[in-house]
């Protein structure tokens, strides 16, 4: 009898191309890769932030030199992007936690043509829109603080 063994084939595997396709499966797919891209971006920012703040132990001059990097137009734009991505990642993350707990999924239904997934309902889509709206509001608030210095 032929033994059953795990075979690592590349069949049906689209890799990064399939992962990044935003047009398949609607808004849930957009939210799927936006959550991952913002996560990777925020991890890179976090590593940079830990390195940046470590200059505090080298004295006032080192701290001010490091700080000057963020006190430019590009530095401000980068920080505004951090504010937006972190807000989206947090709010959408809460939606995902609630979804995994079974909240907002709706009742199971018979799969009828044209096979709209019942799990991607108005509540789920609202969650994605709330995350995007709050990210935009946070970016506006951050822009105001960064530009006014208050």
């Amino acid at each position, binding site marked *: 009898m032929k033994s059953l063994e795990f075979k690592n084939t590349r069949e049906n595997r689209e890799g990064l191309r399939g992962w990044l396709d935003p047009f398949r499966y609607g808004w849930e797919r957009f939210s799927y890769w936006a959550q991952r891209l913002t*996560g*990777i971006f925020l991890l890179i920012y976090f590593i940079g932030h830990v390195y940046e703040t470590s200059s505090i132990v080298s004295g006032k001059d080192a701290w001010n030199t490091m700080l000057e990097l963020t006190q430019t137009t590009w530095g401000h734009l980068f920080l505004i992007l951090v504010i937006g991505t972190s807000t989206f990642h947090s709010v959408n993350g*809460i939606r995902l*936690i609630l979804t995994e707990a079974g909240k907002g999924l709706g009742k199971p239904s018979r799969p009828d043509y044209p096979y709209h997934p019942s799990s991607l309902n108005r509540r789920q889509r609202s969650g994605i829109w709330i995350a995007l709206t709050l990210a935009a509001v946070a970016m506006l608030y951050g822009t105001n603080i960064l530009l*006014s210095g208050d």
Partner: protein
Amino acid sequence: MKIHYITGVGALFVVALHILMRLVVPYASSLEYGYVVSNYHNFLYAVALESILVLIAVHGFNGLRIILLELRQSPLWENGVTVATIIAMIALILYGTRTIIIANGIGL
């Protein structure tokens, strides 16, 4: 995924506190050397910073691990990704902890 959710929700609260510390004074003066050092000298705030460091490092590197495991599967890849992300996570926590300890005044 449980560790990912717990660290994510936990980080949300301590990061909110961290941002509040920047907003209770005008933004420009919140980044002045003297004010930031005084923040580090506050023991409770230093503990909050350490918890941000640990929670986000665990959340971030575990998230990266999940993404990489979704893209490709094989025993070598999965073990390699897990070990590499754990090493990177520990290195970042150690580096950040060094900053917090020295800035808190223990190492000065």
